[in-house]
């Protein structure tokens, strides 16, 4: 699922806006034309995805996960020209990440295990499919008002407390729980397609 995006307006803003608002295909096209801001946005858009595949699905230790992370983006940067369909960038990055994780596990196992039949070959499929679903949910969050995105991300993805969120956003900590609840309902509506995405990112949830 890809949230509604305004390519023209986003192009004039920074990497965060570009990441949230340009379509995958448009972002790839801009990267290919040498737009470094678009490259930064592309990294921002897919960084969590690559990180989650390597750490959550393949359970790579931090050093290996970092090497895979850098290798994935280095290869994407080098080979963007070879991508046949710009909108296929996400499955391409996903496949590249999985392959590099497997290579890393095999290399590590060769150093410690002689019996190569026991090598870990793949990540848990259910975790990989949850990571894909999670990416869709984060993509849908782009259609929420900015304060909703911020609150949901800080609470669920960054594990911040009500107090920390309240301090950061200038909101009373006592109102955070109810805001989270309302934002989740909005997200569910967007995600299930029951309502039109709010579109106007300036809409605030109080």
């Amino acid at each position, binding site marked *: 699922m890809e949230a509604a995006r305004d390519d023209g307006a986003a192009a004039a803003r920074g990497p965060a806006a570009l990441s949230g608002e340009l379509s995958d295909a448009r972002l790839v096209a801009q990267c290919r034309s040498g737009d470094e801001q678009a490259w930064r946005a592309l990294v921002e858009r897919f960084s969590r995805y690559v990180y989650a595949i390597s750490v*959550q699905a393949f359970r790579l230790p931090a050093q290996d996960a970092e090497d895979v992370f850098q290798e994935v983006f280095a290869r994407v940067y080098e080979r963007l020209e070879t991508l046949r369909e710009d909108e296929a960038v996400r499955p391409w990055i996903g496949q590249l990440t999985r392959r590099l994780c497997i290579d890393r596990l095999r290399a590590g196992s060769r150093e410690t295990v002689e019996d190569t039949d026991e090598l870990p070959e793949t990540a848990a499929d259910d975790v990989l499919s949850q990571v894909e679903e999670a990416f869709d949910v984060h993509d849908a969050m782009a259609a929420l008002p900015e304060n909703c995105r911020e609150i949901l991300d800080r609470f669920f993805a960054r594990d911040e407390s009500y107090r920390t969120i309240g301090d950061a956003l200038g909101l009373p900590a006592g109102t955070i729980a109810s805001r989270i609840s309302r934002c989740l309902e909005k997200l569910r509506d967007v995600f299930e397609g029951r309502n039109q995405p709010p579109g106007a990112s300036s809409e605030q949830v109080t």
Partner: protein
Amino acid sequence: MSAYDIERLSRLIGMLPPAPAAWVGAAQELPQARRELDGIVARAEADAEFRQALIADLEGALQAEGVEPTWPLLDELRRRVS
């Protein structure tokens, strides 16, 4: 699409925490790092002494040029100067 309850959505949001900022920053700086790398390689081709020092300490050379020495960059630099 199946119905998404609030708990499931919460769990899915939590499945994608941010990658460490330094990792993201290094990847975002790739275009600039590549340019720096090209400069280092060109200098190594023109200056044998610099090339020797470079081969002896690739990581230090990248850091001296202000480039975060990630594994892919070190690997590429190693290939290009050896």
